């Protein structure tokens, strides 16, 4: 069978796989965003203990392969707790924790890139630390972080394919299952690759737009 007819025949399954990929990516990134913000803030804290907590988390995430993290969360932890684990839930937890670690570093870098004078100016007006961070530092930090944030989104999207090994029927696993039926490895992987590629290109285009809109004052005046 040629590629067009393969696409027609398997379209519903491929689309479902892609949908799950996108869904897992979005949910994981939202959770990772929260984790990244929280641990990023901890890592710029004045308190050593809080910085230490963030450091340990980031080091664990960076110091172990994603695949091992997925196995640990899908097989390891449920065994100890004596519970049945769900591949999708385990996958989302894995990607959230993983991306959260990298996002924490991105947040830390973004916050530290803002000159100290900004925080001091805000505090000298009587703003509490949290308010100064939220209204003065973070809005500026996020602007400088935008390219790195978008990059992490793309990485996490691609990382979902690793979840095929714990049986999540996202796009890659869907490809494997189709090939198990029809043995057309070349054609099916070409289709799967093209689908990832298109989604990521769309994401990159959108992100270029956002980046352009983000420079100060250019949109107004």
């Amino acid at each position, binding site marked *: 069978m040629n590629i067009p007819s393969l696409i027609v025949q398997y379209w519903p399954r491929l689309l479902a796989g892609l949908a799950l990929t996108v869904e897992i990516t979005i949910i994981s990134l939202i959770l990772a965003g929260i984790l990244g913000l929280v641990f990023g803030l901890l890592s710029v804290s004045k308190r050593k203990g809080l910085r230490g907590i963030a450091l340990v988390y980031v080091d664990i995430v960076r110091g172990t392969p994603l695949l091992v993290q997925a196995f640990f969360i899908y097989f390891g932890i449920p065994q100890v707790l004596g519970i049945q684990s769900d591949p999708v839930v385990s996958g989302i937890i894995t990607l959230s924790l993983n991306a959260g670690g990298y996002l924490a570093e991105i947040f830390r870098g973004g916050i530290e890139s803002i000159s100290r004078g*900004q925080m001091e100016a805000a*505090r*000298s*007006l*009587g*703003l509490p630390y949290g308010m100064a961070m939220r209204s003065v530092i973070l809005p500026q930090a996020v602007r400088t972080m935008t390219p790195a944030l978008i990059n992490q989104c793309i990485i996490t999207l691609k990382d979902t394919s690793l979840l095929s090994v714990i049986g999540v029927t996202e796009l890659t696993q869907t490809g494997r299952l189709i090939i198990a039926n029809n043995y057309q490895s070349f054609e099916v992987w070409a289709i799967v690759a093209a689908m990832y590629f298109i989604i990521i290109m769309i994401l990159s285009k959108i992100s270029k737009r956002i980046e352009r809109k983000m420079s*100060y004052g250019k949109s107004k005046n």
Partner: protein
Amino acid sequence: MGKVKIKNLKKNFGDLEVLKDINLEVKEQEVICIIGASGSGKSTLLRCINALEDASSGTIEVDGNDITRADGNINKYRQDIGMVFQQFNLFPHMTVLKNISFAPVALKLKTKAEAEEAALKLLRRVDLEEKANVYPEQLSGGQQQRVAIARALAMNPDVMLFDEPTSALDPEMVGEVLSVMKQLAKDGMTMIVVTHEMGFAREVADRVIFIDEGFIVEEGPPSEVFGNPKNQRTINFLNMVL
């Protein structure tokens, strides 16, 4: 009664003793200019007064409140102490109007409408009314510093601290900032100004303070400190800068 009362203030960074024993009382409506060599601790002293640095020991009272023992109240106290920085430190993601009105609104001291009206008035005072809706990056250094002064004034502070407010400016912009400060002094603001502008100190200061190696070495009216300095180190310093 003193607006600012500093007693036995010491500040060290690790082993480095920057302020060794500072005693200073600033009266209401008084304008103090602090002079001294680079690294003598002038910025550190100003930064201690609004707790951007924690004093190592001693007390700093502003309007009767001891800043060094402020704990959770520090935010409240800081509202009454305006600070103008060498590098302006305007918020680049906010318009000029927002820079000025943001803190009073965020701290629920004013409604947005009230704060913006007050901000426009302040902009008129620093002669930048037409710049209300632009972003800081579109302003010259002198204009940015005038906005920064307006931003500090928006909190209705009791005292204004200036840390070399004109040092980062091109020479042709120094005058516009100094004239805003002169006007402020005339209007009766209590001011503590770290500056290398000896002309300004001579003209505007009620008292000039020379800091060296962590101590106030000489203080008095500008005519005395500049005209008839008593301490050898003051004489050396003035010979160098004048």
